[in-house]
């Protein structure tokens, strides 16, 4: 596990692509902060914040899914996996090692970019509040963790890099772009009183939506979700909810990685 972890971490960060990503994220985040120029500084949820959150929701999951899935298929295709499978190492530990390594690398890339953007925006006096900065960063961290995990799962199912890439895009499209349309289409067949409950359950299946709703509540926007979700929103407003979200993230990832490990084990045979 340790070897997989360190190798993943170091090789990822040594690739020139990670430096490209640093530049990309720095530019994107700075531009997003720039959006708020000419507007009063607010702690709450505004259209600019909505745009920032939405753009991060478009970009981060897509990149993380692709990076996660490719990190597995790369080794499968390069034959490294065949070599590894001759060692008596459990596939689950291998997958966890890969995930944590990749996670540290991605967080490093994002943190550097985010830190630079923060300093830049503060010096240039963009009216972005501290609360926004902290919460957006946390929001991104959750997105990175969830979607890297899912990406790795996709990687274990894909047979080629090309397939991994395509599946990542499809999953991204379903989770991010089509989620509302899909649910609305399905929920037409659900009896009315169950709709709110079903929506509440699906929220926990799609981490993008869960994290989004959670952070909108943290920005003070809980009331927009309406009467049906008042209890959920009230819960999200409590300080206790952050540790619960962290625990949920860990459980979700554990499940995803277990399935990934199981799938790899089967491929080994």
């Amino acid at each position: 596990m340790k070897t997989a972890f360190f190798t993943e971490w170091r090789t990822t960060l040594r690739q020139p692509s990670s430096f490209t990503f640093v530049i990309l994220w720095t530019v994107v985040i700075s531009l997003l902060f720039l959006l708020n120029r000419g507007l009063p500084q607010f702690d709450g949820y505004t259209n600019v914040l909505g745009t920032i959150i939405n753009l991060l929701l478009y970009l981060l999951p897509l990149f993380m899914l692709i990076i996660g899935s490719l990190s597995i298929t790369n080794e499968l295709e390069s034959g490294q996996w065949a070599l590894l499978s001759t060692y008596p190492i459990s596939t689950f530990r291998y997958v966890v090692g890969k995930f944590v390594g990749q996670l540290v690398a991605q967080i490093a890339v994002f943190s550097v970019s985010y830190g630079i953007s923060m300093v830049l925006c503060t010096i240039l006096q963009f009216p972005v509040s501290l609360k926004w900065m902290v919460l957006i960063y946390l929001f991104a961290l959750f997105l990175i963790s969830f979607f890297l995990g899912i990406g790795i799962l996709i990687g274990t199912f894909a047979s080629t890099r090309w397939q991994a890439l395509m599946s990542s895009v499809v999953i991204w499209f379903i989770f991010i772009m089509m989620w509302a349309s899909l649910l609305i289409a399905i929920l037409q067949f659900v009896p009315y009183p169950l709709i709110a409950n079903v929506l509440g359950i699906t929220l926990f299946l799609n981490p993008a939506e869960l994290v989004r709703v959670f952070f909108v509540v943290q920005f003070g926007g809980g009331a927009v979700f309406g009467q049906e979700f008042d209890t959920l929103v009230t819960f999200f407003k409590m300080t206790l909810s952050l540790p619960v979200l962290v625990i949920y993230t860990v459980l979700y990832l554990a499940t995803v990685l277990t399935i990934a490990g199981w799938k790899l084990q089967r491929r080994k045979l």
Partner: protein
Amino acid sequence: MKLKAFLKLTILLGLLNLFPYYVPSVSAQGHLQTLIDETPEGGTVTLLDHTYEEEITISKPVTLIGSDHTVIRSCSNQPIIQVESDHVRLENIKIEHCEDPEPSISEPAIFVSGDNIHLEKLHVNSQSIGIQFDGVTNSVIEGGSITTNGTSNGIDVWESSQNRIQGVQIETVIDGIYLERSSDSEISENDIQFARYGIHLMYSDDVLIKENHSYQNFTGAMVMTSTNATITGNTFSENNLNVNSQGLFLFDAHQATVTENTLSENRIGINMISAEDNSLTQNGITSNFIGLQFNTTKDNLISDNSFNGNVNELQAVNSTENDVERNFWDSSIKLEKQSEGVSIFPYQAEPLYLLLTEDVPAYQLFFDSPSMTVIEALFKVPKETVMQDAYPLMQPPITHEEDGFQLLPTILKLVLGSCLTLIGIKLFTFRRKRI
């Protein structure tokens, strides 16, 4: 030093005594009701720094003036002060109900049924309604504060007209100021917080609501079935705690003039349902979740308003027959039309979300979700059924003030930013040398 002050005071008091009083004055000590009864009509009762534990009824024109620590306190289920006469003046008194854990008090702290009453700087802490007017005219409530146990109205005005409520601080109430069937009144410069409805008009015409600050309530101000209200210079902000919150709510309101108000950080800035012939001009509508929401409205004028930073600026259904033009929308696409200050691209309301959630309110969960944008792109609602601003302004008619420079957050941001960068770099270079 002390002696000097004492001397000054005695001299001052002595001087005061030299002036003959035109109205007989009584210094109150002992039983307040008796004192009031003994005071002739038009007389003044000066209260001491004392807590009077009783309820009083005022049935003749008198003036009661308290000093800084005058308290009238009562634990019984009766109005603490009941004003039955006309021309009564109460000033600078604290009026308190006892703590009432099991709600047994249902009477207001002050009950007024006379005319030409003047209540000034009264600090009311009630377990029921703070001040209640019933059939009162030409009266004034000015300054002071009102709190209740959170289950009653602060100022409750019923079938009363030509009254003025000004500069009162109201907290923890159901409705801050509630007017029913009370026309021709003025509500100005009040500060209302933690209420269900900050200001609530029902069946009350010709009311002026001016320069109030109503915040952190379910709803800042609510005008229901009332005609010709003037709402100007108010600030309705942070009314976003409840799932039904809004800054200003016009329901079945007619001919209201809403101008130069600031509506910020509310769930909905201005919500209009079944409202007709109102005019909304020169309001600053900033950072609300929904700036303006219309449902089944017509013949309203919406112009010269400034919409900034609202997550959703305009939502409307069944509202095409309104006059919407020359507003500034910060999210509209702008291309100037022959330097007329307006854009050639009309700005359109988004009706889809409202239509969708009207049917199934649970879909509000998709508010501002990236997947909602896809739906909006997929289902274009016919243009003629959508409310639009034909000539959006290029520049906001109202500009906001620049935020002042704050040292601490700036330093924190810099420190945090640098820390993140350093940690990131550390992760980059960690153990690299050993390989």
